[in-house]
């Protein structure tokens, strides 16, 4: 079920008063019966937590069991003890985050001096990145600092990100960076 532009603005207009929007998708009368069927008969339900702010609101994702297997609808989770079904304007438009023609869906590469991106394969991209890391790291790896203390680091590579990763991804990412010897490791929490 698509929320029309008009109904979306009507419902999210509530945020203008600083209030949360209640479960988009439930109260849109003309399409309610059809929407219910789409969600219950043709969709698989999974729960998620909103990826925007850190209130941690619960939402229900309805994924099509037919056709392209994409998201049909996302709405507030009424059984979530924090938001009890409500979502803000961003959370209520969460479906547009996953079902979005602006997303990048292929690895891309930009060569030195180039004016355009070129599409590349995952294997090529990751192999090339590993080679760049090795070349940069090995060229100037610091075993000891000016005082002669063992430091085993590289200051020639840096990383920022990310609070947008899951906990488990954060852990393995920092582990990989620290194994590479990076000390310039920062992310959103610093800014």
């Amino acid at each position, binding site marked *: 079920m698509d929320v029309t532009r008009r109904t*979306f603005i009507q419902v*999210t207009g509530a*945020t203008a008063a*600083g*209030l*949360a929007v209640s479960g988009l998708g439930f109260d849109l009368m003309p399409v309610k019966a059809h929407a219910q069927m789409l969600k219950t008969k043709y969709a698989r339900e*999974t729960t998620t*937590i909103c990826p925007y*702010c*850190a*209130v*941690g*609101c619960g939402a229900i*994702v309805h994924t*099509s069991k037919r056709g392209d297997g994409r*998201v049909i609808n996302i709405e507030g989770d009424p*059984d979530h003890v924090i938001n*009890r079904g409500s979502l*803000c*304007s*961003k959370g209520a438009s969460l479906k547009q*985050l*996953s079902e979005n023609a602006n*997303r*990048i869906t292929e690895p891309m*590469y*930009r*060569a*030195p001096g*180039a004016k355009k991106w070129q599409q590349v394969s995952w294997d090529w991209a990751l192999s090339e*990145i590993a080679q760049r*890391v090795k070349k940069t*790291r090995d060229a100037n*790896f610091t075993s000891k*600092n000016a005082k002669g*203390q063992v*430091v085993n680091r590289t200051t020639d*590579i840096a*990383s*920022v990100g*990310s*609070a*947008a*990763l*899951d*906990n*488990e991804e*954060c*852990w*393995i*990412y920092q582990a*990989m960076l*620290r*194994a590479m010897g990076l*000390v*310039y*490791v*920062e992310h*959103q929490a*610093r800014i």
Partner: protein
Amino acid sequence: MTNHWIDIKNSDCILIMGSNAAENHPVSFKYVTEAQKNGAKLISVDPRFTRTSSKADIYTSLRSGTDIAFLGGMMKYILDNNLYNQEYVAAYTNGPFLVAESFKFEDGLFSGYDKEKHKYDKSQWAFQTDGNGVPKMDRSLKDPRCVFQLLKKHFSRYNTKLVSDITGTPEADLLKVYKTYGASGEKGKAATIMYAMGWTQHTVGTQNIRTMAIIQLLLGNMGVAGGGVNALRGESNVQGSTDHCLLWHIWPGYLKTPRASNVSLAAYNEKWTPQSSDPLSANWWQNYPKYSVSLLKSFFGETATAENDFGYEWLPKVDDGKAYSWLDLFDEMYKGTIKGFFAWGQNPACSGSNAGKVRKALAKLDWMVNVNIFDNETGSFWEGPDMDPAAINTEVFMLPAAVSVEKEGSITNSGRWMQWRYQGPKPLGNSRPDGDIILELGNKLKEAYKDGGAFPEPIKNLKWDYFTDGQYDPHKVAKEINGYFVKDTEVKGKTFKKGTLVPSFAYLLADGSTSSANWLYCNSYTEKGNMAARRSQKDAPNNIGLYPEFSWCWPVNRRIIYNRASVDLKGQPWDEKDWVVKFAGDSANGKYVSKKWIGDVPDGGWYPQQNPDGSTRKDAKYAFIMRKHGHAQIFGPGRADGPFPEHYEPLECPIDKNMLNPQRVNPVAPVYGADTDAFATCDPRFPYVATTYRVSEHWQTGLMTRTQSYLMELQPQMFVEMSEALAKLKEIANGERVMVSSARGAVECTAIVTKRFTPFKIAGATIHQVGMPWNYGWRWPKTGKEDSANLLTPSTGDPNTRIPETKAFMVNVARI
């Protein structure tokens, strides 16, 4: 947050200052409204009348960057009018501690200041101690050298007249706020603070929060329901990414990144493990070596052994006394010393302060890896405004990541709740979950170092077995984060088989028999299952909205931390109605004879400090177990800029002197010296105070919202808000396009002329302030005309955290 979202409903008075919850954390406002319905007062203090302000019982404004003056006045009011909880301050805070005679405060400087190095010698701020290193105390709070008396003296200068001159807040408003908030000092009353980046993004950011934390301690508001110090974190997993320490200065679980002088694991553990000989202090960090060794076991698995210091040498060390923070990182990149760069799920070309410097720095890289769900201003910087692609030799790899609903794993909200999410659809097109990208890149690195290279050991030995059927398996990582017994082990009289998940961090060991990738999360995924996936609607017996079996919360599922300060010395709650924990052990002849706490998971399960008959127990522990001496710190001798907060002006400000002391700016704030780091104070070219904020419909740099048609229709453009008086002065009409400029850059904006801003009277002079959202960037919308407010903000920051000062700076506004 020391408390959590639902707990806001238990408050009697809510101060929202340095945040705008109604617009930026809209669902949290459900609980603000519920508290108000139950009689709570809502106070909104903000330079701009926001949608939070529109719901407040009391609203008043202040000039950006003057929060310490505002709160310092509140501190004085609370102390002068005896509104504080004397029993709480005497028992749970370091108010009674005696401070060495070497501590002084004169001319805006604390003792120990080195003018050349812009640093303090903090040893001058030490406590007076007995022969065992335990601080001397005066629980009556009367000794002139006790922290409480020094605090009184320090803030005696913050009278409402002076505060009003600095902040621009009318004196009558100040008194109304002070009186209303100060009323929570009464036993059984609770007040809370909801703050966000409006407090952290300043050269005095840490001390803004310290000032409020001290107020909360004076009023007995820490550890109680409806109280606490609550940072409204802005990103869905910024709590988790901080806990797992994607930050230069800390390792997972807030362990320290080793310094070069920590030459061995033993030296490292000795340096960072605090020692206390006070039998009443739990000094929880005494367990540090258990956590560091268990972490190293998770890093390197079986290759980490006692003989090789568990691989301690394989991990990088930072130089003592040097910072490697965001501002330092981009300063180095700008200088050209950094060659390779990962921007993983982040958009520094818009989010970094002085974004023009960041964008120029990116052009100096050899290569960059940009992982995101949308093309952004960072990955495509080479085709951005004022860039000549032909002259930029940076190679860029742009990798498409899956959206959160397309993968499985956990995130941790602002209230420390770790919540599990499930996969709905598969990743769109050829995008991949970040976890898969990281694991595959790790495999490629291991392959590249198979036959040698510089110091290959850490890469080769990194434990990297988190695959199931060739795919990233978040459950395997989540279990590693919790930790395992890596051999058959006996702890605390219990035997655990090799491969068993550790039930809680109390069972971790320092001899290599346990692994735990983050001790704080030990207890989150146990033999009982994945605690983060729990969904029970059942509340705890105290019925205050803890929902202990819904998801999981660190540490050990304790929903309100410091909760043993919510009870008196006999273990009975200050607040009979909204109690958090209470001691329910048996007593006989006026003495407790069995141990039992009910309610939330107590902050340590020891006996209370006193028996029902008032006699003192020797087997108790002080309430603040994470502090070496067991007491909350009113006096904070570990801070870079002083043990007490003091008002200093922002680096860029409209007045040439600080009305409270002769130091205009924080004397230890870092200042960077590249040609792009221009600053302008009292410069007639930039006469107006500016600040930045967000709107409900956009999120952070806007990358995850500017790409959506629904949200762009609601908030399509970069804008600048200004008062009617300033608009008249500058002959600017509502809706007109204008140019906002600072010493560092310029941004085109649509003018919003509004009553939400009004000019300030600062010591008799009229000062104007404007505000802008920082949610925009040239890549989306495709017009390329809506760019980031961070092109204007300065690259200086807080001396403790190095968070940039993006909430108070100087600009000009002019018609185009």
